[in-house]
């Protein structure tokens, strides 16, 4: 059993008004050293695969087909034994 930890983020060229709103909120909490905020998604997959390589391949496929939209998102992931 493997665990894939996936992070989906907005591509750099995409404006993130949600991140901006959170940034303002942090500033109002007097955390003025925070220069920028961008918000993404975290997804965990539990995968029944024979080895880490296959688990990685399946995760990549899931990311490409569904979990991330390449028009606006990037994805990255790590695989570990569950």
């Amino acid at each position: 059993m493997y665990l894939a930890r996936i992070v989906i983020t907005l591509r750099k060229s995409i404006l993130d008004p949600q991140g901006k709103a959170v940034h303002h909120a942090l500033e109002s909490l007097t955390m003025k050293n925070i220069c920028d905020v961008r918000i993404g998604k975290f997804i965990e997959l539990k995968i029944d695969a024979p080895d880490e390589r296959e688990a990685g391949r399946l995760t990549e496929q899931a990311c490409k087909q569904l979990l991330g939209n390449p028009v606006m998102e990037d994805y990255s992931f790590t695989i570990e034994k569950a």
Partner: protein
Amino acid sequence: MSGQKLKFGVVVFPGSNCDHDAYHVLKHVLHQDVRFLWHKEPSVQDVDVVVLPGGFSYGDYLRCGAIARFSPIMTDVIAFANRGGAVLGICNGFQILCEAGLLPGALLRNACLTFVCKYVNLRVETTDAIFTSECKRGDVLQIPVAHGEGNYVVDNESLHRLEEKHRILFRYCEPDGSVTPGANPNGSLANIAGLMNERGNVMGMMPHPERAADPVLGHTDGQVIFHSLIDCLVQREIVHN
């Protein structure tokens, strides 16, 4: 408008909620043949037009339209579109078409971060389309929007292609037709409210023309979109037969 009827299929996904409005307008206001197509059905049957209605398919989980795009019926909707069948995606339907790759780009969270529910003005950008053939370029239509994720984005190259090939159908504008940031309810790139694919048979728009088509509700600017579609396709059938 000729008396001939087209066959419309309104797809219903779990969470669609504008399917009945679309059905009502098409059947009772425009007197067309309409049926619902449940998302699990394998085929769109013999419909002339597929409508992907508004709503919150699959609860907007993951991304709006991301899961609906893989519903069983979408295989045939995509095949239907690829052989030239007319597809109209409204709001969530537009989101599904983008996720399915039938239209370029994507719809993000509104720039203002709030759900926007109000009448907007749309300027008709091109009438060389089956969806706007009965309009005049520059016509301003009053049609309501109701969405939290209507912020259209696309890469620069695709935007250039859209502009060059006149595939942008509607832009958010002021009542006098001028396209301004103030008239843009959601931050969409170039104030784009609706566009079509290269072949001109697939259209997506964030505003709801079906909510501005029944005279009983006091606004009927949305009717012209359906009239254009019906007249173009009926004419096409007459030419072929």
